[in-house]
């Protein structure tokens, strides 16, 4: 039986009557086997289990009670329940609950769930074609310089979203958000230093981000104003894309920069600034910040969990948009840096 602190959803015994195959789960059938996948979980059913699952799959909609399903299939409810509880434990199925306002999980349980989902939501970002275009030298000068400018605008925007977050923080989140702002607000200058090898300072300061970069920053701003915890849940997803110094990821980033230097020699100083920023972040130990926050928050209701995870998911979509904007927009409109309008420019 699930407890109130289970990270998997249902919160009371009564709700264990309404089974739901998770919407993001995939089901594949071959050679009499049924393979169900959800996030990193995979369960394989064979024989009678596979046969029973296949018969009841279309009824696992969260609206039909086990008794009713058993009636439709002319089978024993206890037999169905036994299989469904195994699937629940494996994480591919949930029992629906209508209650949003009771404690669903602790901050630490949320932390684990958040990491699991974020890794999946970040996959399209890691697979975005812009990375390969830069590594193979196919990206245009505008796309490469645009990439550097948009990174600068995003990092510089710490002034906005981290400032708003600290100013609107809940009591338990305030020390974390204040510390984060104080540690980060100078990091835009690290990128600006790299850009100054190619462009005058006033041109960099006046330059305009792409709408897609503005979208990412504004989404952070709006979340920061609305909910400290949900904001940081989204911010943490962004932090997860930073190079933490872990060996495998670190080597991939080194290879990326080496290829960029080779194909675009004029970006040498820019890359130095990217690396300097990574080191600055690593020295600050930001990887632990969200863990500490999750340890300090009171237990979270289902509504709070959904809110914080939706912000993280939307953040991943905004990050994909950020990548896509650089790739698509600079390919079509090659002006970089992007000057602001004035009364004569139009």
């Amino acid at each position, binding site marked *: 039986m699930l407890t109130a602190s289970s990270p998997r*959803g*249902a919160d009371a015994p009564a709700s264990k009557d309404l089974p*739901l195959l*998770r*919407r*993001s789960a995939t089901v594949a059938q071959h050679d009499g086997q049924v393979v169900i996948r959800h996030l990193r979980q995979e369960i394989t059913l064979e024989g009678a289990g596979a046969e029973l699952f296949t018969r009841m799959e279309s009824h696992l909609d*969260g609206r039909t009670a086990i008794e009713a399903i058993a009636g439709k299939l002319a089978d024993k409810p206890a037999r169905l329940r036994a299989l469904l509880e195994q699937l629940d434990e494996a994480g591919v199925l*949930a029992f*629906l*609950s209508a209650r949003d306002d009771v404690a*669903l999980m602790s901050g630490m349980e949320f932390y684990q*769930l958040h990491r699991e*989902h974020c890794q999946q939501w970040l996959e399209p970002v890691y697979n975005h074609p812009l990375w390969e275009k830069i590594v193979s030298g196919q990206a245009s000068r505008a796309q490469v310089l645009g990439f550097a400018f948009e990174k600068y605008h995003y990092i510089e925007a710490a002034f906005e979203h981290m400032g708003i977050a600290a100013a609107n923080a809940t009591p338990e989140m305030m020390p974390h958000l204040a510390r984060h702002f104080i540690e980060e607000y100078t990091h835009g200058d690290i990128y600006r230093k790299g850009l*100054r*090898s*190619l*462009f*005058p300072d006033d*041109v960099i300061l006046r330059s*305009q981000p*792409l*709408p*897609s970069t*503005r*979208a990412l920053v*504004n*989404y952070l*701003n*709006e979340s920061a104003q609305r909910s400290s915890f949900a904001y940081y849940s989204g911010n943490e997803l962004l932090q997860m894309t930073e190079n933490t110094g872990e060996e495998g990821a670190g080597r991939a980033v080194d290879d990326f920069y080496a290829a960029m230097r080779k194909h675009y020699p004029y970006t040498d100083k820019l890359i130095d600034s990217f690396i300097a920023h990574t080191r600055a972040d690593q020295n600050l130990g930001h990887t632990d910040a969200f863990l500490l926050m999750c340890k300090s928050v009171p237990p979270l209701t*289902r509504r709070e*969990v*959904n809110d914080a*995870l*939706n912000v993280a*998911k*939307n953040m991943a*979509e*905004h990050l*994909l*948009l950020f990548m*896509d*904007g650089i790739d*698509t*927009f600079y390919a079509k409109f090659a*002006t970089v*840096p992007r*000057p*602001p*309008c*004035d*009364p*004569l*420019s*139009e």
Partner: protein
Amino acid sequence: MASIATQYRAKRVYEITSPEGRRQLRLSDRIVELGEREFDWYQKVAAWLPSVRGVADLSRELGMDEAKVPKFIDALEKSGLLYRVDDGPNTMTGVEFHARFSSVLNSWLSEAFAHPFWDRMMSGKGSARLFTGWLIELYHYTKNANRHMPLSCAHAHEKPIKQLRAKHYAEEWNHYHYFMKSLKELGFTEPQIAESVPLPMTLALSNFMRQAARQDILAYSICSAVLEGTTTDRKTYNPYYEKSAELYGIPKSAVTPIYQHLDLDVQYQHSDLFLDIMQHVPEMSAERASTVLDYGHQLVEHIWLWTDNIEKYYQVESNPVPRRSFDVGLD
């Protein structure tokens, strides 16, 4: 010599075409024609102006004697492709600003709607799914007016402008019902649409409007004017809806509410609102005029990228329509 770069800037070029070995560069007020060699030089000058490189570098790149470079830049300025930073006015009235805005609005709108999505839809290479996706995002965009229109009233300081913005909000706040009607005609239920999640760029549009509302009521108003500029008369939007209905089997009953909405906008004369507001602005500094113009142009770019986001999401058959929010119990 080193200060040439700070004296000149490049004007915005809205389109470059290449008829018969020549290059035609379309500005907001003229078309400048260049030969291939001059076009190459122009591109090099435009890239050099905002850089840290000296005139000697540019002269080498152009293969032109250093002494001749200023003359060439001067010629580009006379053609209208460059302008002198110092030539701008120090101040202007609100009505003068509006005249400048009106003179570039058509160029801006052509840029906003230059995305290949429109040709695709009109040529039959689109789909009912893309049409539906566009409509769902329009629903969210229209509903999200409630996130920025009242905010603009809250941040407006002058009474007459506050009044005009509030009246606009009162007339617009519930227009999302028209899109809900259309979507119901396409077979969706009200909760399916009301509980769905907009695309990031749809949300970005309303977040950008919120940003403008907080910064400067005129910045907000120019964005609003760009958006209203897209619906000034039926000629601009009818062909898209009529052709889509014909090509993709969209029932007439799903298009009718959209026309009703657009006709209402025309009836309210919302496209005149920006002039009404600017008449209450006796003087603007060049700096404020630049900021306001920049917001208007950024909104134009938002529309382009919004279209791109819609096309990329809805053309993938496996993506859910409408988009659902994440639920820890269900996903």
